[in-house]
């Protein structure tokens, strides 16, 4: 009896807690899938959201969702939420956020306040895509694309699909890691609207949270090759002025070594091992006889482009390749200030070894 009483008290106190959790039934909320931030004027920003609107099907399959996109202008420092909510019939929920776009002008002035919003929110996933827009985020979000999907899913798929191939891995988690980590700087894809498609224009480079410059998309492959080990990327080798060969890599492995880490002139060795196969060739060259030559050309081009990237990064003083972090792992007395000072003069030796495993089925 005593046991039963205790049980009843426990259960009824549980029931009293029921009022504390607000239900968010899926069809009674507005799911925000994309956020856009743009520079409006010196004291205002333009915030844009996209939410899907699903039609009632009456129990017969799925009807295509339509995107509802609208923008509000808000004073810097105030949250957009209140203004956005005032135009929505259901509470806005950002738990299924897919992508956040930042206008280039806004990104120059520092992005962190606009990333912190999602950083603190446990509802938001860590794998959402972030991107800088060459132009205005609002324009892209309002554009009618010829795809079946909503703009938010379209952009997310575009970025994620490229990260699986030749574009270096990036998402909210990677951005925050690089932003808060010592000896590294974040980067994002740079998007641009080209007629009816969005194109990845390149890698937007950040110093802290300020956009500084970008690497063109052609450099994405050599950048990724130095940034991480990966496979399934594709790269074009210029055989001569008019002829290119497209190589798809089977594996690309990168290995770092640092010498004289604690001195003022550390030497960083980046060894890349590329293994790939020939996919397309526009040249009249007989690939079979010239595999060695193609390999050599590819090694030379990748090394040249890699060195160009490294030079540019050093000149800008940004470190998205996380070289500082690599040096730090060799040097107990490493400090951020010291690294920033010596970074432009650091010696980086890039060595690429290429193996072509296969030249296609027409041998």
């Amino acid at each position, binding site marked *: 009896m005593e046991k039963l009483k205790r049980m009843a008290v426990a259960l009824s106190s*549980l*029931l009293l*807690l*029921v009022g504390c*959790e607000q*239900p*968010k*039934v*899926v*069809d009674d*909320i507005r*799911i925000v899938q994309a956020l856009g931030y743009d520079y409006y004027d010196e004291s205002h920003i333009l915030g844009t959201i996209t939410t*899907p609107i*699903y*039609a*009632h*099907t*009456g*129990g017969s399959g*799925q*009807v295509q*969702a339509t995107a509802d996109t609208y923008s509000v202008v808000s004073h810097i420092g105030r949250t957009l939420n209140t203004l956005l909510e005032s135009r929505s019939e259901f509470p806005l*929920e950002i*738990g*299924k956020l*897919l992508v956040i776009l930042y206008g280039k002008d806004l990104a120059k002035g520092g992005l962190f306040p606009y990333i912190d919003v999602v950083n603190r929110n446990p*509802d938001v*996933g860590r794998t959402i895509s972030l991107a800088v827009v060459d132009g205005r985020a609002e324009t892209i979000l309002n554009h009618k694309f010829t795809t079946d999907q909503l703009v938010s*899913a379209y952009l997310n798929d575009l970025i994620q699909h490229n990260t699986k191939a030749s574009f270096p891995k990036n998402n909210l988690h990677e951005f925050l890691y690089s932003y808060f980590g010592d000896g590294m700087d974040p980067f994002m894809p740079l998007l641009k609207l080209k007629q009816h498609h969005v194109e990845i224009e390149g890698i937007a480079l950040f110093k802290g949270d300020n956009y500084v410059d970008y690497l063109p998309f052609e450099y994405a492959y050599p950048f990724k090759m130095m940034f991480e080990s990966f496979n399934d990327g594709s790269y074009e080798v210029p055989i001569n002025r008019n002829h290119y060969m497209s190589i798809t890599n089977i594996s690309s492995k990168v290995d770092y070594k640092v010498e004289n880490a604690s001195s003022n002139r550390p030497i960083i060795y980046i060894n890349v091992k590329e293994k790939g196969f020939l996919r397309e060739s526009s040249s009249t060259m007989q690939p079979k006889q010239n595999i060695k030559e193609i390999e050599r050309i590819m090694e030379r081009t990748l090394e040249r482009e890699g060195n160009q990237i490294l030079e540019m990064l050093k000149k800008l003083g940004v470190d998205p390749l996380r070289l500082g972090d690599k040096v730090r792992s060799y040097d107990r007395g490493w400090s951020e200030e010291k690294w920033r000072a010596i970074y432009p003069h650091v010696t980086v030796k890039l060595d690429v070894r290429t193996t072509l495993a296969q030249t296609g089925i027409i041998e």
Partner: protein
Amino acid sequence: MLFRRKNKTNNNNNKNGHKLLSRAERAKSLSDFFSMMEESKDFVSSDHKLKHMTVRISYLNPMVDPKSIRRDILPYLISCDATKLEDLVHYLPFVSITHTKDVEQIKEKLLKGFILIQKHKEDPDGLLLELTAQHGRQVTPPEVEFSVIGPKTAFVESLDTNIALIRKLLPIPNFKVKEMSVGKVTKTKVAVIYIDGIANRENVNTLTQRLKDIEYDNIIDSSFLVQMLSDNKHSPFPQLVDTERPDRVVSALIEGKVAFILDGSPFVIMGPTTIMEFFTAFDDYALVWYLASFFRLVRLGSVAFSVFATPLYVAVLTYHYQLIPQDLIGTLISSRMGVPFPPIIEALLMELTIEVLREAGVRLPTKVGQTIGIVGGIVIGTASVQANLTSNVLLILIAMAALASFTTPNYKMNNTVRLLRFPFLIAAGFFGMIGIAAVFAILVAHLLKLTSLGRPYIEPFYPLRLSDLKDAFVRLPYSQQGQRPLLQRPVDSGRVNTWRANFKYDIDE
């Protein structure tokens, strides 16, 4: 402790106020008993004149076989030269004839279908012959525990037939049958069966004692007894396995289990058992071990699905929209559009509909049952989606959960699974995933505490006994089944002579 006495010293007290019984038990003398019996029309007692003496034959007419009286008793009696009652024993064609003066015994046997031969009505001296009529049905194929492969024999309502079915498969002297009776009014015969030398004495004694201590007037079916002698009488989980298959009982006995058979019940109860045993079927042992293991895992998976599918739907749709995959969110939202209820009400409504259908279907004749299935499944399902009372995604989940719950081979466990989802559902509706986790914690705590005849109920997992895992989630091949399960603590733990089984013969030229 309502039905089980703690001390078993006083056997025949009337303290509980069984007025009905007290009168019968007061009939200390035979004449009292006769006068009581004569009030019933089916009691026959008549004098017969033999060559040298007269006898009085009494019996309960419907309980005995009238043909046998005419054929096996009367001709021999009339033609015999006996002058004394005890001499009759030599003339009658019966192996066992009880000659007794014990009124209690006469009373008991007479009511069970024996016939009584006396010199005259007042003489307490009598012969008892068994002539019980066999009213039971024939041995039929199993209906509840049907299997595709394997023997198609099921127990019937007769204790003797059931023991015969088991003995046929167990021709060893170690097979022991201990008989006793339970039920103050029904006096039902119950037999505890086990194999001496394998079964642990402790298990036998526990079961015997619990059966002896039962204090209840009406014991009709073995399922009554299960509730009375289970370790935890309030648990939704059955703690003793019931089966209608002799082959299953025999394999259990050989594993070292103890079982009991109740006269009049076609289900034999076995113990001690674990939760896994309720999800095993005969086919698991008839197929190759990996096929059997796969189907067993499917069965366990469908039980988990059956319990968690709708609660998870309710929790995710009410509180955790973040968990829905991107491509599914559209389907879910558009199917729920316009449904006037929150997901919890929607789910409860549909779950109850399914339960009503099932209850209606179970007790209907087969042909009408099918109609109910069609009416329920198609008409109500489609109509409720079209009328916007429910989303079609939920309808699919409910239907699949109902279907999945039928994969449980044991009917009692099946009912448990049916009930289990409701606490989960309600917790999911109020608290979301945390609610599901909390109810799950309560469930696990309950299972941890459960015992079956004093042995842990979720045994191979807690306490972890690795060797018993050979027949839990997966069923390993027979070559790995050389040891009896540890749960039963068998006296003889080995199933095979391992030395002989592993002996390698030399190549003989």
